[in-house]
């Protein structure tokens, strides 16, 4: 049943959670760059800007320690990381394109082996989504079957209303629990209209048709044509809500150090480089092909989902203006 929360009460809620020791993560301005970061107080929360990076890092950090080692003569001691130390978190102001990516990532992080670094954080996090009233022409959530008011991935979803405040709807037990624990701050939703929601200009792409083309066109001039401009950085993968490739490295000395899991990207030359010198993806078109294939075919083959939520961050940030929406639209128009 729909509830209503005023902006003031939302601020009270967030400040209350912060005071209780819950980590409240929301879009906030960090030295001029909007990012999803822990808030010191509710006043820091931004509601009118898309963070430069996605919300995936609340579950899959840029870098994290997965164990440490110490060597004493011939003996090694390993110290594990305690998942109990991951804090209770409320992720608030999450855009639909960011929230929808989280359940998509659940698939790979629980495929056979359970990655507790991701899953434990998932267990401890409640996601409060927020509908979008603004979009630009890089946004293409509508092209991949999402929308500015899609509630996928959100435990609780806020839609801004005319006159201020938000309509809120719960979509999970976590959402219910959050409302029940702070029921005084929520009232019944009256019939106030929502603010006009954003209208991304892209139309729904036939993803099945795109996948069929990808099934049959591993070799195609399209890859050279598009990748010729790609310079092989990792910006697209790093800002993406759905990209999840990572590296595991040991850093330290022979005596002591840490093993870390860090973001990595298939666009990098050395991503698939063997120690022998052989590299199956030795040229940029092969690497760029892998990006598109992974997002629009392989992840579907393996997990039945598309690895893209149309947030448009890669489009905005690409140093050379590669537009993944244009490429996928182009593919969908091929016979």
């Amino acid at each position, binding site marked *: 049943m729909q509830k209503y929360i005023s902006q003031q009460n939302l601020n009270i809620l967030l400040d209350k959670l912060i005071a209780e020791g819950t980590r409240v993560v929301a879009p906030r301005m*960090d*030295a*001029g*760059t909007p990012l999803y970061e822990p808030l010191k107080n509710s006043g820091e929360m931004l509601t009118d800007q898309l963070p*430069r*990076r996605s919300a995936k890092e609340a579950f899959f950090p*840029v*870098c994290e320690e997965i164990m440490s080692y110490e060597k004493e003569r011939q003996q090694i001691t390993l110290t594990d990381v305690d998942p109990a130390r991951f804090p209770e978190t409320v992720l608030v102001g999450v855009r639909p394109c960011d929230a929808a990516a989280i359940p998509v990532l659940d698939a790979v992080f629980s495929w056979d082996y359970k990655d507790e670094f991701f899953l434990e954080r998932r267990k401890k996090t409640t996601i409060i989504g927020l509908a979008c009233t603004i979009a*630009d*022409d*890089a946004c293409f959530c509508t092209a991949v079957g999402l929308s500015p008011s899609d509630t996928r991935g959100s435990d609780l979803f806020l839609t801004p209303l005319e006159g201020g405040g938000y309509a809120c709807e719960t979509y999970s037990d976590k959402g219910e629990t959050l409302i029940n624990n702070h029921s005084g701050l929520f009232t019944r939703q009256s019939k106030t209209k929502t603010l006009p929601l954003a209208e991304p200009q892209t139309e729904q792409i036939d993803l099945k048709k795109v996948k069929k083309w990808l099934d049959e066109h591993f070799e195609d001039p399209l890859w*050279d044509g598009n*990748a*010729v*401009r790609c*310079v*092989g*950085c*990792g*910006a697209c993968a*790093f*800002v993406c809500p759905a990209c999840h490739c990572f*590296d595991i*490295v040991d*850093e330290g000395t022979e005596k002591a150090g840490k093993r*870390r899991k*860090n*973001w990595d*990207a298939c666009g*990098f*030359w*050395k991503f698939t480089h063997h120690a022998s010198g052989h590299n199956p993806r030795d*040229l*940029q*078109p092969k690497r760029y092909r892998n990006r598109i294939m992974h997002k629009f075919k392989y992840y579907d083959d393996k997990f039945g989902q598309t690895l893209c939520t149309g947030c448009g961050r890669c*489009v*905005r*940030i690409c*140093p*050379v*203006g*590669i*537009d993944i*929406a*244009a490429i996928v*639209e182009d593919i969908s128009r091929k016979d």
Partner: protein
Amino acid sequence: MKSIDTSIYTAVTEAIRGEAKRLLSEGQISVIVGYVAGRRTGSAQPIVVTNAADAAILIFTPACVNNLAVYLTKAKKEIPKSGKIGIIVKGCDLKALVGLMGESQLKREDLYLIGVPCAGVLASTMQPAAGLTADTIAPKCRECDAHLPTGCDFVPVAALPPQLQLEGVYTAEIARLEALTSAERWAYWKEQFAKCIKCYACRQVCPFCFCEQCLCDRNKPQMVETTPRPAGNTAWHIVRAMHLAGRCAGCAECERVCPMDIPLNLLNRKMAKELKELFDYEAGFEVNEKSPLTTFTEKDDQSFIK
């Protein structure tokens, strides 16, 4: 808000199209590296054109921010390097090409340079439809001394319309940082480098980062940590600034492409300032085979020897 006169960009676009079509159909060049419009309103992206019919899609607008010189380096193996290569260059891009020639990476006779008169480009193409104004123009353009490239094979439109005089920002910011104590300066850069996520966009767009395997990508030995942590990030950026000192042409692409808004060009401008003071060196349009950090002359400053 002061708006910058961009009326000549249309004339430049027409001229580029005509020249590219002529060159390709006459077989004078085998490819031309230029810019084409993207799907988003006002956007531009690099393109490699190999046939005369496609010359009609080439453009030059304030969204043509890329330094295309990067595509001619040995790091980019996908661009066909046979035959003469045509390339569109702004003044800043040309300085980089000149630097590459000085380092024996390119031969002038292999290139057909189409130098474009440029009033400036956007600081960021995250919203490419933005008009070019004093607020949206790239910081590097505010102090540009290369609006009209020289020594090229073709320059459409021989002169620029009168330019807005804009105050540079790098000089003032470097002066501000120089006036801080070391501890304050260190705190400033620590905060900046903590933002780095090691996407290497800065390296990948830089025409001078053409090493086929970057020192920091090797692991025997591992010179710099790959993890995006403050210590390794600081080392990475310092290593890159040092490797670029005396070479960087100031195209500021590194700063533009950084997804985390790190003011990377400050480091390079500071190094350029040092190089000017110590060795009277600056990047320009003349090929210089004796780069200051690879040659020694008797009059070089020796005050560091105590």
